[in-house]
């Protein structure tokens, strides 16, 4: 049996006196498109930072590819060595660099020479259909274009996993739907595992096959998203399902 891509073992996280979660366990398989759902402040983004190696757990271990990558208070495997990339909530595009330079600098840890970096960056821009925007700065792009630029930067190093930290907040529904399709296409094309953090189950259903709902400091329910929505247990999913229009009832 192959080891999960990433695994949390009895992880506890605290911010000052506030305990975000305790004895938290979770496994995400390689190649899976996995959604972490939950209300604001439940620690979803913290989970992504634990996976990425941006912060260590207070207690417990984070395993990547069957080896301990972070243990209590210590990061053993540096973020860029995990081959995970991330699209941040605010996209984190470096504002003084052009889109092409953003993608090229994002390849700093890939061990490529300058020419290879340029080719890889251009290829990522082409894949994300923003080749013509390479010379622009992030401040000169629309919201949707910025999303694509961030996506290009994240996909250019050919990561094993793409971590998405609520990257669609603030976009209108038409652009969102378009981007869901694009991301699904690109991740299939690049063979990337997707871990999405969102408070919106609709996003999860559009992008992911599996998911877990985080509530009250632990995993409330976990499995195939289709199954979770069929018989929701968590408050998050029940609230979502309750407000969906019922196909069989009413005056329709």
């Amino acid at each position, binding site marked *: 049996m192959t080891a999960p891509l990433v695994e949390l073992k009895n992880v506890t996280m605290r911010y000052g006196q506030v305990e975000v979660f305790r004895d938290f366990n979770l496994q995400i398989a390689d190649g899976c498109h996995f959604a972490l759902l939950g209300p604001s402040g439940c620690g979803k983004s913290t989970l992504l930072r634990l996976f990425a190696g941006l912060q260590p757990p207070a207690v417990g271990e984070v395993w990547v590819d069957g080896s301990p990558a972070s243990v209590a208070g210590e990061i053993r495997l*540096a*973020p860029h*060595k995990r081959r995970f990339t*991330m699209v*941040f909530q605010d996209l984190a595009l470096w*504002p*003084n*660099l052009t889109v092409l330079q953003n993608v090229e*600098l994002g*390849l700093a840890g890939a061990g490529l020479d300058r020419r290879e970096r340029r080719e890889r960056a251009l290829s990522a821009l082409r894949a994300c259909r923003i080749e013509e925007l390479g010379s622009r700065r992030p401040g000169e792009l629309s919201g949707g274009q910025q999303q694509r630029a961030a996506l290009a930067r994240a996909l250019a190093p050919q990561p094993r996993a793409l971590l998405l930290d609520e990257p669609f907040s603030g976009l209108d529904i038409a652009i969102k739907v378009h981007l869901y399709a694009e991301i699904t296409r690109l991740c299939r094309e690049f063979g990337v595992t997707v871990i999405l953090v969102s408070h919106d189950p609709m996003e999860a259903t559009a992008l992911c096959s599996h998911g877990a709902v985080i509530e009250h400091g632990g995993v409330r329910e976990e499995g195939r998203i289709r199954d979770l929505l069929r018989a929701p247990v968590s408050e998050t999913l029940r609230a979502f399902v309750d407000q969906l229009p019922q196909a069989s009832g009413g005056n329709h």
Partner: protein
Amino acid sequence: MISAAVLERPGRWRVLGLAAGLAAALLPGAPLVWEVVTGAGSASVFGGDFALAVGRSLIVGGGAAILALVVGFPTGLLAGLYRFRGRRVLLAGVALPLLIPSFLWAIGLSMLRIELGLPRESLLSGATGCIFSFAAIGVPLVIFAVLLAVGSTAASNLDATRLAGGELAVLRYAGRACFPAALSACLLGGILSLADPGPGQILGFSGAATQVLVSFSALYDFELAARQCIVVAGVVLAAASPLVWFTAGKLAAGLLPRNATPMRPARWPAAEWAAPLLLGLVFALSVLAPVAGLVQPVLGRFWLDRTWETVARTGANTVVYALLAGLVATGLATWLAVCAARVASLRIAFVAGLIVVFVLPPALNALGTALAASGAPAWLDPVLRSRLTVGAVLGLRLTPLAGIVLLRAMCTAPASWALAAAVHGVPLGTYCRRVLAPFLAGPIAISVALVALLATADVTTVLLLQPPGQSSFPVALFTVMANAPESMVGSLALAYVMIACIAIAAVLLVNILVKPLALARGSVSAT
């Protein structure tokens, strides 16, 4: 490889770096404190006039602070909340005293009194003259503190208040919100006056700072000067401690970026005449009146040759001191901001430390450095007895101004930039060079310019530390004013005011030109 994420993680290096940086800013004064604490001499500093001088300093400081608050607070509130014709020019005009050494205003008031034929005991001399001179600096401090505080108010809050109760409600709401900033600024103005010897010496109301200068420069009693300086520092710190206690946390929180649209000045018919009237009055009393005094003796004769010779002789030194000060202050402030920006408790400690550094008398650092230099071997002269020394000591004293600018800038940089760099394997050095440094370039340039402009007005540090023949323009003026004809002093003083006007005009021009350019490049938000 050091990961860029280190910039966003907590760590002991932050505390150590902050402590080391603040200690560096206080280091020049350390030899003096050590000498006094361990010295054998036990003569009381309170002999003679010194206790009286301390009392006079407190009267002047308190009076200047109250006057600055009473005048500056309503003026700043109206100027911050409302648009009116000539707003930028009037604000630039009232900022002028910040670039001028306080003793020049005192000279101006003294000359004005003579021209008006007023007796020595009139309002323009003695305690009230000193209060007016220092209020000329305190009022713009309060006005600009209130402007900054008003500017960081959320537009939605003001709109909601406006809908609920009209403009008077807006004034009440903004007034309550900005009063702590105004109070802090007026206290700061008062405290700064305690360490400034100029106006007291000229207007016949010598304070403690004057006594320190006299002990060192006229009596050549270094030990007495050192002891007096420590007493002044103690008084200033005691006066500043409530300021540190009450405002450090608020100021540190106020420096954080807010996720709300900041307010923009609105139109209000009443403010369209009231605001320019108040600003015009401030400008007339704090700038035009002293300048009128300076002009009178010059009407008979303007010493063009002597003025030009003095400017030519001291101009390069003045610029070198100012630029060195700007670079030292900004370099240290950048390091301090990197250490403190991401941890709330360190931000408060940083701001508290900055206030302490800023309010200490400049003579403390200068005399401490002079003491260290007097016992140091000759090969240390380039470090302890050179123009570099003067610039560095000036810079360390003005680090707080640069610190506020850089801390604000560092707080504005999202944590996700460095985290993204870490995820992508961008080394710390590359991240700093390619992302952080370009982002901080604007605030760094502003910080260097601000410190350099304010450093040009310093007298105490340059006077006590200048290498032979390397005087700055204000010090040259300060040293000739007692013996030179009034018309020559007036000529030099007017030349200084004109240079300061040119500097203000240049800043105004850059302010007018740069924003549209930045908007066109898309590097600042259009909102």
